[in-house]
């Protein structure tokens, strides 16, 4: 009961701080939109922006899963390879002609993808928690395994969806839209909303944050740390499967190099979105903003005519660093 007057200014300060931290990625996003409007006249058209959002869908959805893993203090480098693996298996399944009705086929393939995604995520989680191996190394190893299996499945070539009926029925999942909003964009927001609910409004989400914040505390509180960790990888697996769901109708084909570097993109999206790599803080909507940011950088680079294409990579790297600096300076001022 020391004194109530002192609490108030302190609390207000705190609030301002929390807000800015969460808002920073959106400010970075807004700045990029302004920058983009200088790059090309067509940049700020609904068409272009919807294109960009649509194609950021896989990374965004994978990154939403990564938000859970990272919030719990983990890391998953295998998601890119896992995408290739799951998508390859699904296409092979749809090529198998076991089911005559194309719609049933697509639904069965969807179920299969989700099942494989969960199995892969579970494997990652168990290798890490039961094997007690650092997530970085464990998932790097799993990345080799998924990638290798994909190469083997494709026998070095491409795996292409052959059945035109299946293709026809599946295609709108990427190219279709609801009231003008492409399905993949809807998928991002639905996934993010569910994820935000789980992370912020359920006890499981609370436990995820606790495990990432201080493992010992979580353990003493009766939380099964290994279970929670494993579950985050399972969620990651599900999200990867979700990404595959949207990915397949777009290109209808996979190769051994599908999804290379996606793990780094996903992690970048998460971190640019304000989630700390050390764990304990997770920002689902920030992650979505992060994924948009990455894709918009690429879009601007492609629309502008001033930059040598040899330097694209350099400028993308520089913009990511600048985006982080903007975030940091915003946060510090508060």
């Amino acid at each position: 009961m020391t004194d109530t007057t002192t609490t108030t200014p302190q609390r207000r300060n705190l609030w301002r701080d929390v807000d800015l931290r969460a808002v920073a990625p959106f400010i970075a996003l807004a700045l990029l939109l302004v920058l983009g409007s200088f790059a090309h006249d067509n940049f700020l058209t609904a068409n272009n922006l919807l294109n960009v959002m649509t194609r950021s869908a896989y990374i965004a959805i994978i990154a939403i899963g990564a938000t859970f893993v990272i919030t719990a203090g983990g890391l998953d480098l295998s998601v890119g390879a896992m995408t290739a693996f799951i998508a390859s298996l699904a296409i092979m399944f749809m090529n198998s002609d076991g089911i005559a009705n194309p719609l049933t086929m697509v639904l069965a393939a969807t179920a299969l993808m989700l099942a494989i995604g969960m199995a892969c995520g579970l494997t990652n989680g168990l290798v890490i928690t039961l094997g007690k191996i650092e997530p970085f190394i464990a998932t790097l190893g799993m990345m080799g395994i998924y990638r290798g299996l994909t190469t083997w499945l494709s026998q070095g070539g491409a795996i292409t969806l052959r059945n035109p009926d299946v293709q026809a029925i599946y295609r709108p999942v990427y190219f279709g839209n609801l009231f003008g909003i492409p399905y993949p964009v809807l998928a991002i927001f639905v996934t993010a909303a569910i994820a935000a609910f789980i992370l912020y409004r359920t006890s499981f989400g609370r436990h995820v944050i606790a495990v990432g914040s201080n493992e010992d505390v979580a353990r003493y509180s009766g939380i099964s740390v290994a279970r929670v960790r494993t579950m985050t990888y399972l969620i990651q697996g599900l999200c990867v499967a979700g990404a595959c769901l949207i990915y397949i109708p777009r290109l209808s084909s996979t190769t051994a190099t599908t999804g290379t570097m996606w793990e780094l993109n996903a992690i970048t999206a998460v971190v640019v979105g304000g989630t700390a790599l050390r764990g304990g803080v997770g920002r689902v909507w920030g992650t979505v903003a992060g994924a948009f940011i990455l894709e918009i950088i690429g879009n601007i680079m492609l629309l502008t005519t001033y930059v040598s294409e040899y330097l694209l990579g350099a400028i993308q790297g520089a913009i990511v660093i600048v985006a982080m600096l903007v975030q940091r300076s915003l946060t510090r001022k508060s």
Partner: protein
Amino acid sequence: MTMSVVSPSQDHKGFMAGHGLAKTFGGVEVLKDISLDIRSGEVHAIIGENGAGKSTLLKILAGHLAPTRGSLTIDGETVALSGPVDAEHRGIVLVHQEILLAPDLTVAQNIYLGREIKKGLSVDDKAMNAGAAKAVRNLGANIDPKTVVGRLSIAQRQLVQIARALLVPHRLVIFDEPTASLTPIETDALLKVISDISKSGAAVLYISHRLPEVKTLADRVTVLRDGKLVTTREAAGLEPLDMAQLMVGRDVSKLYPDHVAPEGEDYVLEVENMDVPGYARNASFKLRRGEILGFAGLVGAGRTELMEGIVGLRPAKGKIRLNRRPVSFANAGQSMKAGIVYLSEDRKGKGLLLQEALGVNLTLAGLKKFVRGIMLDRKAERAALDQAIAEFDIRTRNKDLLAGQLSGGNQQKLLIAKMMLLKPNIVIIDEPTRGIDIGTKEQIYMFIADLARQGKSVIVVSSEMPELIGVSDRIIVMREGVIADEVSGKHMNEREIVVLATGVKPSEAA
């Protein structure tokens, strides 16, 4: 070894008992053949020197550690606790000596962690915030349940931790030095909570180094020494000095050394209009050569932050003169070079590398002294460790232990030894005896007085009023980030300090 068993008083039923408990860490037996019973409705204090094995015993009772030998009974039945959660289900909760909270979660989220209140699929944050606010208020504290724990002071965290433990239905509440980081006001509130718990029929086990507190609160007292149980007695009839004698095995008659306060204008450190944004405003004070200056205040008064601002550990504005020369420090390295050292109140988070060996910790700040050519002189490091162990009476059976394996009090001594290697002229000690037994306290007070006698100056920041009064020449009282006033001589008494610290006249205070 004297082992006087007291006949159980009729109104207290036995709840739990330990029989022949022993615990071995890496070949060293730190607990030997301990048998004790705990009765419902009693407050049972455990006292002993640092490293006597108190925390270890309590951890065994709460299921955090398995005993190497011996057994536990609850309600007369032998049980094997599989872990803290199992113990909790049986109504046994432990409030740790160390802070165990998730720094990224809010107060309410921590209090309800692992036992969230749910509403359908989702958690009911409203209910939990309300519950947490109430739980904290019951402890006499005022902490916003939506504050992130990482932003709380040590004392506030301690209170949150207690609130969390008390939320479970409990039959035995175990407190490991709950008052060590609390100021008198919070202490009083907590002591009241503790006696309420026992009145409600649950048992309380309780460690404290504050013997007068033990005297007023405990029904029975168990004394540990070197891992052995010395005695269990009714508290009535045991005076603090008797307790000290039982603990240490010798007479402890005079806790505070004599020290003659220096006078005059020989100021070594002058601080003017110091601002530590968010914590302290416009602080000005002067420190004489050979003086021991106390800093009093309530939890959150900003003393720690002011000191950290002065030595360059936090952004701060203001004038500092060292031996009349203006100085400013951008980091702790610079202030150390100038002869000022600061000992953090947070010895685990900011004082010691818990995962490193004692020697590495000891020499970390003064590493330059151990460099020969370009190489570290490991022999000299080892010699320094031997010397520090002897000089500061660090109780360790093994010099290869990691700092985190020392008992709390011995960690504090190691931290003091570490900073003293720098041979500073001005020493700022924050909560110097937090969690330290009475025998060692005496040593630390002696040490502080010796420093002053050698012409060095010491600033003592402490929440323990008797200690401040006993050791300081002069006391500055802070309230809400501002220096309220300064007391010395006969004005240095608890009443006047509390008035200054709270800004409330004694008549108004409830």
